[in-house]
């Protein structure tokens, strides 16, 4: 199984791998969610959705569906 942002635990850091899915909105890329950048999970709301991330220095929250489309490598 692939590891995605949705699999991260609180405080865990990871590197974003290739982004291929069309589902990922451009806006998310523009906010710093790009291949090679570091992502850290800061907080999760109940039931792990939405999740609150620090991506490349930007703080943002996204829903689980999108988070589970972004493949990462835990560091």
């Amino acid at each position, binding site marked *: 199984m692939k590891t995605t942002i949705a699999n991260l635990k609180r405080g865990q850091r990871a590197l974003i791998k290739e982004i291929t899915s069309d589902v990922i909105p*451009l806006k998310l890329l523009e906010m710093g969610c*790009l291949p090679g950048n570091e992502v850290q999970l800061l*907080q999760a*709301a109940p039931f792990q959705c*939405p999740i*609150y991330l620090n991506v490349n*220095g930007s*703080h*943002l*929250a996204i829903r689980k569906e999108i988070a589970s489309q972004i493949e990462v490598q835990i560091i």
Partner: protein
Amino acid sequence: MAKQIKVSLIGNPNTGKTSVFNLLTGLNQQVGNYPGITVEKKEGICKLSRGVKAHILDLPGTYSLNASSVDENVVIELLLNKKDKDFPDVAVVVSDVENLKRNLLLFTQIKDLEIPTILVINMADRMNRKGITLDIPLLEKELNTKIALVSARKKEGIDELKKLIESHALLPKTPCVDALSFAPDYFDRLKKTFPNQSLYKLWLVITQDVNFRKFDKQQVDIAPDFKIKSESELKRLQQKETIKRYQFINDVLKRGLIVDEKAATGMRAKLDRVLTHKFWGYFIFFMILLLIFQAIYDWSSYPMDMIDEAFAWLSEATKSALPAGPFVDLITEGIIPGLGGIVIFIPQIAFLFLFISILEESGYMSRVVFLMDRVMRRFGLSGKSVVPLVSGTACAIPAVMATRNIENWKERLITILVVPFTTCAARLPVYLIIIALVIPDEKVGWIFSYQSLTLMFLYFLGFGTAVGSAWLLNKILKIKSKSYFVIEMPGYKIPLFKNVVINVVEKTKAFVFGAGKIILAISIILWVLASFGPNENFNNAEEIIATEYVDLSEEEQENKIASYKLEHSFIGYAGKAIEPIVAPLGYDWKIGIGIISSFAAREVFVGTLATIYSVGSDEEETIKNRMAAEINPKTGGPLFNFASGISLLLFYAFAMQCMSTLAIVKRETNSWKWPMAQLIFMSALAYGVALIVYQILK
């Protein structure tokens, strides 16, 4: 008049554009709308040295020129249209020193448009705390621009910014990065076909779906081979472009920005641990809501009582100062009570906007969105619907507009449709006066009273009905739309006093003048309708009463005459005509008149009653006392008792009585279908519930 320098403030949301704008313009500003759409347009004048002036425009926040919302379209449409009267002589890109990397993405795009650009790096006061050092000369050179290091909070750096604006002719106009090198063949061909155009502009025209003025679009239309084949191809290209830009930015910042992580201290992590906590987060949100209601009901009652008495006094004083006559009657019985009916709600509306703007300024509102998203989605809404629903407690109009940043159309439509159920400020006048009449003024515990708890219940009822109908709509509506949700979580800030004050004043003013016009017009019409009658009964009231009730005292006779006149006036007949419809709800014909007149706007209800009850009476008395003394002719008890009071409260909680909201919903959904559905559904619900409740309680 000397030519003004036209300046546009551009930047990501929350970078401090509005704060910088407020500092530049002071109170010399005005808020309007862009023609045709309801995006707020803030403009103002800034005095530079030697009589030179600058016209400053505060544009909506945008993350990039790849527009994904109506607000963002405004920015790109302006920047691509040289003929627009607001087209900037100089673009001021406002950035936040803590988020410089992300903020610079937009900056590189603006530079590509070849407009003279100044970079404001704001929030300089936070640099120490975050361990940030900047190499300004290096950044200026690499980014090919002039930089103003500003702290809007400490009011530092504004003079430098003004100087840069004044000498805008010296600013470099060329791009700082070649971001379009990711597809060399394509762009070479494009350049050859349109040698006189800026390449990036052409690229925007090709990729963006916005309303361009004439020439740009046509020229590109005649070259179909430049169209991007598929959406995924387009996205791939835009991704490459974004990566190019970030590569450049990373490279520059590696040299120009040093962050000493060890020196960095921050409240963010600590505060987030509590405010987004699975239990405490919700608990704190609930307590904040409680506080807001307490302020609106209890704290604002003191200034409101004073205003109420002041208007009663004013009416009386005018009456004794001026000679008697129909014109003076119109002023003292129509206009003054009508105006009083609206001025009295200023304290509450101001409190509400005060809380909302503090919550937004502090960065807390985003945490609420985060906490509520999952819950709201169950009902077909989004976490972002919370802001409209909370704003809806002030007014449905800004609330409907605040749905714009909900990316998913179905969630947005549902939010728009249910927002009018939330308890807007216009319902408060009705609620407050009815609550004061029928709910006992006693304390439960030592802070809450029955009255404020009732008001809180009504707020929850409005919110609950909104959410319940959302759930229903989510089941009924068959709309497929791509769901995505991205929200920035800004750092926590202590709100800037000046921003909050300006916001509260502006919003309150808009409400008072907007509603005030309608209320004033309606109270004049009502007064006329109440002061004349269609037949002789009205004109001969004195004689009829005098012969019928010979043995009454003079004062009692006078009261009889007044109510006889009202009953036989135009409005009396109108009220009588609808009495059969409203009687099962526990209302008499006077309340009926109030309901008819408040179909244009709810807050008219109290003004109407004020007008009706002061027509034909001389004593200085407040509306509330007057209403408490009303007798229901059928039961012989007070007209406003528990059953009819609750029925009236519920009627106003559910009914759609606001023409402005219907108009805005039409504009935002682009069809009459939705506002009409709202009107019918809400009115039917209101009538049904009020009927059932009255019949049970009476």
